[in-house]
């Protein structure tokens, strides 16, 4: 296993039995790690060793392992998804570290993301925000011709950029306030910019913001940490748009709310 240029690392990993127990850091040695491995593969190697030594493996979330599902939440050396910008943990390679490094790995920390076990957190608060308004009305029946609704190219591009959000929660993890504004703003924007999203436009933003607040996320103070750490480079412009949509809904909606 120990090939040329392989590394030995010390891991300080958060271990927590379940959401009702207190956790603590455990130290592990990761030996013979190839620089070409992803961070998750490194954890796989460590877990194999733990299992064969009859020890509990480290629990962490993962699914696609190619940066599209957003499952692999890990706060690595003080940053969500580690030291590289624009990547998820599964896209982070061990060549970003040096032989002999100590790496501190923690779960996302937010009242709205309770720890399930070790590094795995419960992000269903995001799902509930989506259920509150992240949808559009469509007719059932035969599928429509593609592209029969004309959309301005700039709006389509902006909506597409916002739709790149994978719901990973790095924005919340990075934010000193645990604010979910970047996520919510991306989800509101992708629909507010398109003709299909107009029917629920005002209800959507009010309901999603309400749900966001109820879940216990903090208030945005525009530090910009979310944008800097977002693996999909979702722009802060979306947050400005969310604030605008919120004011517009408050002022324009023809009902008392």
């Amino acid at each position, binding site marked *: 296993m120990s090939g040329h240029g392989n590394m030995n690392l010390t891991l300080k990993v958060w271990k927590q039995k379940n959401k009702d127990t207190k956790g603590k850091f455990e130290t592990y040695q990761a030996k013979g790690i190839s620089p070409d491995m992803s961070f998750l593969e490194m954890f796989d190697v460590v877990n194999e060793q733990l299992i064969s030594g009859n020890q509990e493996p480290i629990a962490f979330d993962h699914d696609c392992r190619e940066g599209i599902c957003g499952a692999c939440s890990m706060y690595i050396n003080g940053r969500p998804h580690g030291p590289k910008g624009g990547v998820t943990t599964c896209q982070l390679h061990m060549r970003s570290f040096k032989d002999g490094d100590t790496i501190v790995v923690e779960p996302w920390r937010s009242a709205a993301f309770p720890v399930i076990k070790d590094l795995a957190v419960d992000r269903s608060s995001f799902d509930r925000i989506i259920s509150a308004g992240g949808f559009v009305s469509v007719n059932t029946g035969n599928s429509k011709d593609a592209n029969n609704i004309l959309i301005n190219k700039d709006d389509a591009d902006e909506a597409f950029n916002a739709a790149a959000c994978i719901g990973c929660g790095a924005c919340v993890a990075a934010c000193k306030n645990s604010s979910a504004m970047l996520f919510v703003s991306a989800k509101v924007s992708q629909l507010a910019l398109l003709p299909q999203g107009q029917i629920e436009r005002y*209800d959507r933003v009010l309901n999603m913001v309400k749900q966001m607040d109820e879940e216990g996320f903090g208030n945005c103070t*525009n530090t*910009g940490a979310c944008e800097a750490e977002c693996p999909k480079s979702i722009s802060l412009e979306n947050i400005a748009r969310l604030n605008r949509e919120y004011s517009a809904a408050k002022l324009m909606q023809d009902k008392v709310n």
Partner: protein
Amino acid sequence: MSNKTGLLTSSIGKKILMGITGLFLISFLLVHCFINALIFFNDGGETFNKGAEFMGTNWLIRTMEIVLFIGIFAHIFLALKLTLDNRKARPIGYQLVNGTANSTWYSRWMGLLGTLILMFLIIHLAHFWVQSRFTDNLAHTREHIVGNQITMFDRMSIVFSELWIVVLYCLSMVSLAYHLLHGFQSAFQSLGLNHKKYSPLIKTTGVAFSILIPLIFASMPLVMHFGIIK
């Protein structure tokens, strides 16, 4: 379905109020700085005292003074609420945080910078505002002096004759500068006033404002202490 969220209870509502009060305080700084800069006529405070008299007697300004106090209290109250709520949103903190990797230190320390400004405000109001509103020690201009009254300009020379007060004022202006460096552009973002073409202009104006205004303010105790303006 009810989606009732109030300005004071919803996160975005609070931010909108924060932005409005912040911008209002900024507009106050501009006027305050302009009036005080009249000392640079270096005419023994004659022009400045006239300016101060206008500010102290004009009914519109006096009304705005009340609005200003409401604005400051609202800003502070919301800041406190925002900061405390945000602390609750992360009950268990990280062991290791690399904040410099993704944000400026002053954007993360707005609460502390604001508190330093508040402490300064209390001292500053005690120095000048309390003297002019609640005592008979000050006359509007030299012509109006009764007994051993002095003018606002004289009061400035007395206050700024103490070196440690000059230092305190200058340091407080550094806090203000950093508060504004984040706050100016942040207020526009909070209000959703963002535009591909105008946002860069807002940001540049914000940086210029945040450096120039505190610099001009800080120069006042300095020039008076060292007798350049007398």
